[in-house]
């Protein structure tokens, strides 16, 4: 280890002096204005072909291209109601540039957001851009999101991960996949979101209640997974990605091809596909039995874009097969205790790609149709989506059968109609309606997990924004209605009883943004959100096989209501400091949680029972992130997040909340030659505290106590290599460099096995781009 550190040190020292003007440290400040009146334009989406990077202008029409290499670039500007502008740019040194866009009708109109109502809202948010996503490619979405400050994961070993935002997870978080609310089966910690992260060009995490924009359930926050704009410019483009993971011998390949049609102006198509296969993963000293993973995903997008009209059809298919660690499947409380008390895995195994029971097989299909049009009154959009989620779970059983013991189908249709009106007396905003129809059903012969139900829902919302010089004020209102029709088998003869539930609620939000200086801003948001109890919280009545416990639902549960306050400040001193401090406080009325009850003796021995109860919860916390450039090529960063989660009624801590954490790292960027550019070497250390904020009755509920604190070291290095004028990006990342044996409180396998050991990842990315008619640009 020391030798490795030494080598890195020497390498760093060796390259230190090389950072000349032709390096990739050029910063270009850009401003986009209206041609006629010189007013700043926002939001304008900007795209640079060669970098594959997307930007968006701020309220002052500004955006910044940082870490750019010298060279020629094609830069695109898109704004609703404005001409599509393509400029060729020759970047040689730091510069400040101005671009102007003309309105199509030559009208001096206010800019209208024709796209989703997600981008300009005032809310505490963090972003993973294209480069961050690429640097983590091959990981699951949940795992990837851990890079975002304030986000942690709830996991089942190394292959199943759910994002946790400010301590909240599962159905308290909404994931928007390409603008569509992802409806997969988030009933338990072992159900990860069914999304292929290779689809994403940009991932945004909104932290805190966001009920007004996203409707029910957005209590903890929202994850926006957004693909890039489909190429409608003539020619071909795309990229190929490869990643190899040493730990579980996992290989990932993904490819994207885009084409802009020559004869139909504005028509473009994109095809994308991903393949992934990994075997058992390795924890320090042992293999984890039956933890392989397999994924095959594909998607297609057809987009048609004109000045005042656009249409898009999107289809994606996600398909995964996941092994669940065999040792986590226990028969009764005694088995569970034995597995917990064993220091080594209770199942010994070698490496294999084969999957055995227990196992999950999930497929998710998404169809989306989007139409948008704009005129002088504003911009309309209509989005219809159909999602089909099919989850099969294969239990460890006696007898010979290939059948799954659980076959759950969840079908969801959603419709959104949105209108962004033009400025009326300086106020811009949007109104819209949402409709949802969902049905969930199991197959005959399944073990009872959640009852069949169908649920129609409808909502209407309005969000208005007013800008007064440095201050932007935003306010929104929403009204939701949701109906549940549940068919629950009950009693000894399992007769089906129908239940009807009606829920409705109003949500509101007020946001303030104050720009002290162009590089320093404050935002404050006061918002609320609500969540109806889910079918499993209402009706769960049975054994959780892997957890060896019995969970009992409660039909009388009330909806959860959350009120959150976020205050955030962002300060940016180019080439020196970047600091973000975010404080939050969230009060959740009727917070639904599992409370332990009596033991039940069955023919299998003893089981613990848990019942769904409600209390009032109060979550307070802070996320701080600071980047500092020590010298021009060397950057240090420090991130930390803290959370205090209280049960107000019991005057106690809430169970299963992420522990406080700190991470720090160094990154060194430099160029070696014209052919080897954008070289980076980085090291990262993550320290996670032992969670000591646990309920007083913890030992009775959850044995053993939360695992000890731990530090994990990661290292990375990469470069862009020019081959015949085409850049090829490659990088190597080593996670858990010291093969540290540790467990994490938020991992459901912490009772049984350690976290994954050292994992080296080799990544390769090859973008390609052809223009059919160069003279046009």
């Amino acid at each position, binding site marked *: 280890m020391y030798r490795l550190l030494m080598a890195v040190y020497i390498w760093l020292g060796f390259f230190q002096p090389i950072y000349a003007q032709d390096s990739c440290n050029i910063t270009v400040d850009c401003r986009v204005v209206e041609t006629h009146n010189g007013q700043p334009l926002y939001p304008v989406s900007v795209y640079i072909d060669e970098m594959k990077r997307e930007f968006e202008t701020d309220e002052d029409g500004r955006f910044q291209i940082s870490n750019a290499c010298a060279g020629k670039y094609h830069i695109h500007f898109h704004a609703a109601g404005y001409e599509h502008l393509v400029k060729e740019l020759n970047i040689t040194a730091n510069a400040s540039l101005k671009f102007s866009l003309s309105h199509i009708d030559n009208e001096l109109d206010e800019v209208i957001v024709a796209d989703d109502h997600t981008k300009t809202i005032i809310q505490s948010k963090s972003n993973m851009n294209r480069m961050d996503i690429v640097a983590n490619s091959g990981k699951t979405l949940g795992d990837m999101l851990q890079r975002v400050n304030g986000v942690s994961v709830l996991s089942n070993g190394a292959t199943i991960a759910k994002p946790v935002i400010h301590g909240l997870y599962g159905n308290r978080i909404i994931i928007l996949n390409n603008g569509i609310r992802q409806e997969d089966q988030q009933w338990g910690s072992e159900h990860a979101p069914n999304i292929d992260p290779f689809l994403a060009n940009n991932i945004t995490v909104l932290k805190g209640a966001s009920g007004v924009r996203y409707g029910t359930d957005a209590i903890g926050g929202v994850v926006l997974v957004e693909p890039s704009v489909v190429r409608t410019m003539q020619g071909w483009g795309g990229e190929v990605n490869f990643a190899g993971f040493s730990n579980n011998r996992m290989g990932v390949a993904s490819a994207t091809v885009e084409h802009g049609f020559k004869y139909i102006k504005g028509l473009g198509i994109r095809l994308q596909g991903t393949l992934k296969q990994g075997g058992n993963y390795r924890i320090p000293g042992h293999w984890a039995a039956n933890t392989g993973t397999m994924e095959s995903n594909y998607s297609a997008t057809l987009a048609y874009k004109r000045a005042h009209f656009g249409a898009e059809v999107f289809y994606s298919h996600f398909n995964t097969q996941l092994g669940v660690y065999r040792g986590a499947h226990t028969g009764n409380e*005694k088995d569970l205790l034995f597995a917990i008390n064993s220091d080594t895995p*209770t199942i010994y195994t070698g490496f294999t790609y084969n999957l055995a029971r227990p196992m999950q097989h999930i497929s998710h299909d998404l169809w989306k149709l989007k139409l948008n049009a704009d005129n002088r009154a504003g911009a309309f959009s209509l989005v219809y989506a159909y999602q089909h989620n099919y989850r099969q779970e294969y239990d460890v059983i*006696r*007898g*010979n059968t290939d059948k799954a013991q659980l076959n759950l189908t969840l079908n969801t249709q959603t419709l959104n109609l949105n209108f962004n009106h033009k400025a009326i007396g300086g106020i811009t905003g949007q109104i819209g309606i949402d409709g949802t129809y969902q*049905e969930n059903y199991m197959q005959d012969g*399944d073990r009872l997990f959640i009852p069949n139900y169908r649920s129609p829902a409808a909502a209407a919302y309005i969000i208005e924004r007013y800008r007064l010089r440095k201050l932007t004020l935003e306010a929104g209102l929403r009204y939701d209605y949701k109906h549940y029709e549940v068919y629950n088998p009950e009693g000894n003869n399992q007769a089906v009883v129908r239940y009807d539930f009606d829920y409705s609620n109003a949500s509101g939000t007020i946001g303030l943004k104050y720009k002290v200086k162009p590089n320093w801003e404050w935002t404050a948001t006061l918002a609320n959100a609500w969540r109806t109890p889910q079918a499993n919280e209402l009706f769960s009545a*049975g054994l959780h096989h892997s957890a060896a416990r019995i969970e009992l639902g409660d039909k009388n549960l009330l909806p959860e209501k959350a009120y959150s306050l976020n205050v955030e400040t962002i300060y940016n001193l180019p080439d020196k400091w970047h600091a973000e401090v975010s404080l939050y406080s969230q009060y959740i009325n009727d917070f639904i949680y599992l409370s332990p009850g009596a033991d039940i003796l069955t*023919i*299998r021995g003893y089981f613990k029972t848990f019942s769904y109860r409600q209390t009032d919860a109060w979550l307070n916390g802070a996320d701080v992130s600071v980047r500092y450039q020590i010298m021009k090529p060397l950057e240090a960063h420090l991130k930390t997040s803290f959370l205090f989660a209280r049960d107000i009624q019991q005057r106690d801590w809430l169970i299963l909340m992420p522990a406080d954490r700190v991470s720090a790292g160094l990154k060194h960027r430099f160029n070696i030659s014209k052919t080897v550019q954008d070289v980076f070497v980085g090291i990262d250390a993550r320290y996670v505290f032992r969670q000591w904020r646990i309920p007083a009755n913890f030992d009775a509920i959850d044995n053993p106590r939360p695992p000890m604190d731990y530090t994990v070291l990661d290292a990375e290095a990469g470069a862009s290599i020019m081959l015949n004028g085409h850049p090829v990006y490659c990088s190597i990342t080593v996670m858990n460099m010291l093969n540290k044996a540790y467990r994490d409180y938020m991992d459901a396998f912490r009772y049984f096995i350690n976290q994954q050991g050292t994992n080296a990842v080799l990544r390769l990315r090859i973008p390609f781009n052809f223009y059919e008619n160069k003279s046009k640009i």
Partner: protein
Amino acid sequence: MKSNIIKFSFAAALATVSFTACKKDEVKTPEPVEQELITTVKLKVTRLDDMSVKTFMYKVENGFGSTTQGAVTIDSVILAANKEYNVEVELLNEKENPAEDVTKEVKEESNEHLFIYQSNPATGNGSIGFGMGNKDGNGNPLNQTIKFITASAGKGGLTVTLKHEPTNKAATTPDAAGGETDVEATFPVRLQ
């Protein structure tokens, strides 16, 4: 421009109508089945000197799958002191009518199952000693049939455990066997 809006509104209205129209009339009634439910453990005990037969039952009305387990009835195992018995264990699912014999399945997959017997106290008055049991397909213990050797008169307990996919087939305690517990039934014992 106006025509655009009209077209658009029309499309929106159409979509809304079709959206609400595709409601299905009936939600299929689920028929959940608890996989491999076991409700009853039956000990068939044959006294070797006079070949008299007794049976003892441990019954949980709804088995382990459901939270409402129903009535639990446990027979006391009353045997003569200082005798030898041949014992056969039967597992039933009495939720089915007629009752399903789960023992058959277990025997078919004998390589993946192991019965374990424990006496409390392990020795002395009221205890039971265990002889050799039957074997699985690989010649390893299955112990679905076994010999009991009763000690002197007294009171105690007998636990019968069925392990699924044990990691150690030679084990004499459930913990050492590994795997999953399918059945763990403790009978009160009286030797007289």
